């Protein structure tokens, strides 16, 4: 833990410029005997928005989980803001996740992963885990309410009673509460009515990233087309290079 903290303070002093926010090299990950991610390489620079598209079961979520240390096993190098957070491990999923999150990762998982009994406000608070973001949590909550105005009226309501779209807002808002340098957003439009899904994506696009970076996994290419810096295709655990949206559509036979 100390190593991570030291490296983190060094990283904080680095000059603010376009740098590699996330660098994966030779990353493999999976669960038990199953290997989901195969020797994957990826570089995401600061200020960049990247879309990862691919069908169900091709490893988009597992890639995000591997970066967060939540898969059953993994090996290969993961550098978050210059700091090595990947390690070869075969057990203990989630054991280091909180340290990785503290090092600047915000994972907004698929299916929201909410705390059904906490109110919206407590939920947002729970996203503010670093001492600084905890002190500034009032201002941060204000900022999130500006992004998602419908949450204003729901602050005291338990999240279990919210609709799917509202839950997604809470889940994304929770991810935005901390001081992340990398946002991983897993299928933000999944299970939502098309219009609401589009609103959620709009909110993500309108967000000022500053020096941080964002990776969005989506199945619906048209939602990301022309709005992110790069779109990568994912197929059976491998990234299929940069693909333009039109090409992806063609690949999927929808054009």
């Amino acid at each position, binding site marked *: 833990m100390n190593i991570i903290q030291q490296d983190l303070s060094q990283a904080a002093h680095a000059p603010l410029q376009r740098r590699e926010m996330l660098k994966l090299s030779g990353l493999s990950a999976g669960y038990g005997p199953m290997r989901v991610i195969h020797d994957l390489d990826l570089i995401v620079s600061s200020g960049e928005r990247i879309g990862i598209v691919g069908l169900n079961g091709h490893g988009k979520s597992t890639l995000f989980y591997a970066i*967060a240390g*939540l898969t059953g096993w993994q090996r290969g190098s993961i550098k978050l803001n210059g700091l090595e957070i990947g390690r070869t491990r075969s*057990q*203990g*999923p*989630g*054991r280091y*996740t*909180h*340290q990785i*999150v*503290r090092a600047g990762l915000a*994972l907004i*998982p698929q299916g929201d*992963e*909410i*705390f*059904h*009994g*906490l109110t919206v406000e*407590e939920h947002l*608070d*729970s*996203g503010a*885990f*670093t001492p600084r973001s*905890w002190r500034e949590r009032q201002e941060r909550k204000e900022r999130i309410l500006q992004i998602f105005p419908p949450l204003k009226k729901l602050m005291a309501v338990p999240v279990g009673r919210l609709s799917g779209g509202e839950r997604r807002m809470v889940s994304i808002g*929770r991810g935005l509460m*901390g001081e992340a340098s990398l946002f991983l957003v897993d299928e933000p439009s999944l299970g939502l009515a098309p219009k609401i899904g589009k609103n959620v994506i709009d909110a993500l696009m309108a967000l000022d990233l500053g020096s941080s970076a964002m990776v969005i996994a989506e199945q619906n290419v048209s939602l990301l087309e022309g709005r992110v810096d790069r779109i990568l295709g994912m197929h059976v655990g491998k990234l299929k290079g940069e693909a333009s949206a039109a090409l992806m559509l063609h690949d999927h036979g929808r054009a």
Partner: protein
Amino acid sequence: MDVWFVISNTIVLACIYGTLAIGVSITWSSLGFLNLAYGFIFAFSGYGAWLFAQHVSTFGPAVLACGILSGALGGVFVCALAFIPIHDKPNFTIRGLIATLAINLIGTQSLLWWFGPRSKNLPEIFGTWKLSFSGVTLTADRVGNVITSVLMLLLVLRWMRSSRRGLEIRAMMMNPHAASIVGIGVRRTSFYVMAITGALAGLAAVLLSQTYYISPFGGLTPMIKAVSIALCGGLGSVQGAVIAAVVLGLNEALTTVSIGGRYVLITQFLMIILILLVRPRGIAGILDRAREA
């Protein structure tokens, strides 16, 4: 049958068992850990309070505080020994059960070896005064028991509602997987949980010592009752544990006055089986998807 006797007994027992059961319940739902070393923590804090009363002071509140502190210490000890090394290993639930059971056996034997088989008794921490109105007499230890346990529970619940650590614990109780995603460390939070629940056991130990004695194996029955009350109330639910504690406290008081104290465990388990037949998830059992998957 004296109605007032039954009612006051019910309340006193419900307070003490409720305190213990809430501890079991919180540990289970936040850490996924059924702490069978609870009986050892219970006895350990009783002896802690006894040592304090023997060597330092017999001032009631200080003895009580010392019991609570030794309980918290015992909780941290069990956490470091039985939870931290195995919590992310395969088959953790069963391993944890065996590890805590082992600590319980070794711990109680060590207490027996160290302090001897003779039971100890604590000074009367609430004094010897009596309240009596309209024919009902309430002794100091009963009134004190109820007030302190309710106060302590309110304090713990308030802390869990309003503080940041409390928020972390509640988040972990609801969805451990999501908790790690938002940066809550299981290991650190587990120490808070175990300290708090250990403190609750310590409180119950000192309170129960006002009626019974402190002995190495004295924690066994309260632990069995606490685990079954927690189960009955629905593991993970504080309200459920309180309701179950009242129901089973009433059962114990009624059994004692009607057919005799030695049948208490029998009627209690019949009652628990009945409740679980009607509501398999316990009185307020929530659908605990995170753990059943």
